[in-house]
């Protein structure tokens, strides 16, 4: 049963454009995450938000920025996309920060930058 929703499923864009991905969770969790998954399936955490506060911010390029309106939503904006941004972006949530509790993932947004 899906409880973490992501839109769009797939997005194709040109280098230099701005894109925004949406994520919503209906689990009542306090923490949400964005991961980048490359073509080799490697998962790397990009951001996590706990109660609207950024608590983990990996060394991602500045063109990436998370945006949260409330604890159920965490969007990801990419200003001026680059070819290396092509990947699957996965949103997740958990009831406590860290790995103590299970992370629930959305289906992902696949980005292709031409």
């Amino acid at each position: 049963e899906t409880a973490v929703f992501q839109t769009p499923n797939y997005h194709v864009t040109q280098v230099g454009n701005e894109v925004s991905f949406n994520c919503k969770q209906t689990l009542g969790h306090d923490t949400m995450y964005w991961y980048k998954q490359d073509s080799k399936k490697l998962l790397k955490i990009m951001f996590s938000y706990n109660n609207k506060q950024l608590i983990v911010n990996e060394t991602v390029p500045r063109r990436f920025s998370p945006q949260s309106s409330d604890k159920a939503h965490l969007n990801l904006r990419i200003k001026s996309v680059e070819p290396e941004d092509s990947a699957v972006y996965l949103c997740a949530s958990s009831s406590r920060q860290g790995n103590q509790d299970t992370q629930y993932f959305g289906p992902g947004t696949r980005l292709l930058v031409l």
Partner: protein
Amino acid sequence: SQWGEENLQALSIQEGEDVTMNCSYKTYTTVVHWYRQDSGRGPALIILIRSNEREKRSGRLRATLDTSSQSSSLSITAAQCEDTAVYFCATDSNTDKVVFGTGTRLQVSP
């Protein structure tokens, strides 16, 4: 085994065989989660094992944890075609940062 910047591991077996996937981690962890990811979907938890447990079973799944060698394994008994997926271990390194292993792609053929 999966960790660090190693490439995705790949295993190919026949239906009915047993298979074991390994995971090693670099620092202390309080729990090891094992996730599976089906094609076109996000990872989903299948079993977790805490640092005070040596073994955990769930159906055909068996997870082990050896804190002295900082390693965990996931075994699937009598694999079925529907077990075909990518499997990840994840640890917390006693921090807020979740670290996923590089993953093992399991292909089960009829």
